């Protein structure tokens, strides 16, 4: 029986072509899912009787908020693996995920404020979820700033990993602190209005869009990790081969 080499794709030079083959599939999946999800969101899902048409921004808002939190955990996971096992590719993955995660957090805040203006009458309220999303964006920015200011990539990887792990321990603490702070200061004046039973088409639209954002994130992260691999391995032979082939084609 042939022995499977589980770590075959853990090396940058084998992962690079694999990522290149996967990107079109994930990109296509993202486009198709987004098209279906947006169709369901705009044309199939009924108008909300309380919030009117304005609620439809949740089809972007909720998936980006989910992805921003999920990506932080994934980023911390890869950073921790890179720190513990000294695998270069894991740290590159963490570095590649950070900008997408920050983008998702930013989009969640932006769409949240667009939704808040007609619903709450203000562009920004110090709602617990909004506030913790803002802090999450700060954490992403801190991670990227730390990595950007260290010239040696190996040191940047490991320092970023420590920060990401400290951050991931802190995220639940921050989340619950903010929630408690909010209930203490504002009472129940503002709450995310959840209709008691969400129409199932709304839920489907949201899930489709969440999947679309998921696929998009994977595709973009893979593109970025390929760029990082090329940059870091530029002195190695296989990158020279890739370059030579690119020039010939």
């Amino acid at each position, binding site marked *: 029986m042939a022995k499977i080499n589980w770590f075959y794709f853990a090396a940058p030079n084998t992962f690079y072509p694999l990522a290149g083959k996967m990107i079109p599939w994930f990109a296509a999946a993202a486009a198709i899912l987004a098209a279906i999800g947006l169709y369901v969101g705009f044309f199939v899902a009924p108008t909300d009787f309380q919030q009117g048409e304005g609620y439809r921004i949740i089809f972007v808002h909720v998936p980006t908020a989910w992805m921003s939190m999920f990506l932080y955990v994934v980023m911390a996971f890869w950073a921790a693996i890179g720190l513990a096992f000294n695998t270069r590719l894991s740290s590159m993955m963490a570095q590649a995920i950070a900008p997408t995660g920050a983008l998702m957090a930013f989009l969640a805040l932006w769409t949240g404020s667009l939704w808040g203006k007609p619903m709450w009458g203000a562009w920004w309220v110090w709602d617990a979820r909004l506030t913790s999303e803002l*802090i999450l964006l*700060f*954490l992403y*920015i*801190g991670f990227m*700033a*730390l990595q950007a*200011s*260290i010239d040696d990539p190996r*040191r940047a990887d*490991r*320092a970023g990993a*420590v*920060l990401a*792990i*400290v*951050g991931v*321990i*802190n995220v639940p*603490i*921050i989340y619950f*602190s*903010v929630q*408690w*702070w909010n209930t*203490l200061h504002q009472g129940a004046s503002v709450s995310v209005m959840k209709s008691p039973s969400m129409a199932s088409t709304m839920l489907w639209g949201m899930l489709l869009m969440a999947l679309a954002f998921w696929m998009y994130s994977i595709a973009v992260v893979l593109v970025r990790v390929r760029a990082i691999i090329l940059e870091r391995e530029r002195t190695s032979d296989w990158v020279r081969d890739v370059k030579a082939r690119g020039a010939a084609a």
Partner: protein
Amino acid sequence: MGSFDAFKALVRRDLLLAMRRRADVLTTLIFFVIVVSLFPLGVGPELDTLRQIAPGVVWVAALLASMLALGRLFSADYADGTLEQMVLAPQPLGLLVGAKVVAHWLVSGLPLVFIAPVLGIQYDMPWDALGVLMLSLLVGTPVLGLIGAVGAALTLGLRGGGVLVSLLVLPLYIPVLIFGAGAVDAAATGTGPGAHLSLLGAFLVVSLFFAPWAAALGLKISLE
């Protein structure tokens, strides 16, 4: 030298060094006083407003002051090579980091606790709230020092380290701010600060356990 002896020796050494450069210690304290005194000039002198914002203002100023002081935590030892000797020492590095944080807190955190009531009086805070303010700072400022040590260790010797450390550390300070200021608020409004102070205590225990280890890891990464 036993681990505990090393701990004591390092605390004593850092305190001695701090006493030789008293101006550094005073700068943090004066900064704290100035920041708190600026708010009435910006907000206006109405005592009703000031009383309301006092806990938050004092706590935010404490956050900023202890963040500014972080630059001194490791940088002098890093510059003259002492830090490398600590990494090489047979005692666990986490313990030595703990000793440095304790000494650092004694000279930069503890003075804030004692000056805070004076600032509270400027804001016309009630007496029991002043006691709670001191207590919350007493429990909360060590947490700030411990979390800050991780940021200071990771940014050691980097260009723009001072601004960078604020970016890393301030978001992590938020729970301490919420419950520190919340405790004083609760005392002022009469709901009782017990729960807030207990949570601050819990933060202190958790950060005492994790932060020296994470800071030691950060130092090793920065020094290699």
